């Protein structure tokens, strides 16, 4: 189909200002992609940790490497945000919090809470 629409496309990602509900949504997508990438690592670690006593120790020491910790914080944020935002979507499916005001409030809560929980867990267990 040939487009006759001459309106300029304005898709500079750094200029687009998403509303908070849009931010919660695109983070849900990005965190989902990151979690997808983490699946093979999780299977590998499961295999290693169950292989032998030495394998189990090796799986634990992987976590103490600085650059692994950094990736782990990213995976952690992805998991927490995906969980919270997913729970929010399930509530919206049940017609809970559908109004614009409530949707904005819950989106703000999800984005903020995911960051706070990630920082707390990172501080206690990872770093």
């Amino acid at each position, binding site marked *: 189909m040939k487009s006759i629409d001459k309106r300029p496309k304005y898709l500079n990602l750094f200029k687009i200002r998403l509303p908070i509900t849009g931010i919660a949504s695109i983070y849900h997508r990005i965190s*989902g992609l990151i979690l997808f990438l983490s*699946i093979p690592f999780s*299977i590998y670690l*499961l295999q290693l940790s*169950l292989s032998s006593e030495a394998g189990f120790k090796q799986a634990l020491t992987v976590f103490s490497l600085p650059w692994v910790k950094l990736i782990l914080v990213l995976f952690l944020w992805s998991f927490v945000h995906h969980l919270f935002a997913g729970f929010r979507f*399930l509530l919206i499916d049940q017609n809970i919090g559908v109004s614009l005001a409530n949707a904005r409030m819950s989106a703000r809560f999800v984005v903020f809470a995911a960051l706070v929980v990630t920082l707390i867990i990172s501080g206690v267990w990872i770093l």
Partner: protein
Amino acid sequence: MSLQAQGMRTWLLQRLTAIYIAIYFLSLIVWCIFNSPVTYNSWYTLISQPVVLVLTILFYLSVLIHAWVGMRDILVDYAKPTSVRFVLLTGLAFALTAMATWLLLIVIGLVKV
């Protein structure tokens, strides 16, 4: 809405797998907290129980199905033209099936006959 509708089935599958993934993962975290520090023996004993093995297979099956639906959504939205999307979707299906097979091999190794 009929469950015969393709999109409705996918929608429901995505939510059911999401709930199962959340329950399994959070349960595992709670177990780790109550059994801290986790040792090789306690970890191996937990996972190699037949019930936990089945629950773990279901967990990964849910993860892989959930990933298929989610990644497919992303590819359908951004991967253009259709030929590129087709190649990426095929690669995705291959990767997910490979991961399922890998997990199955690990689990088979844990089953005591």
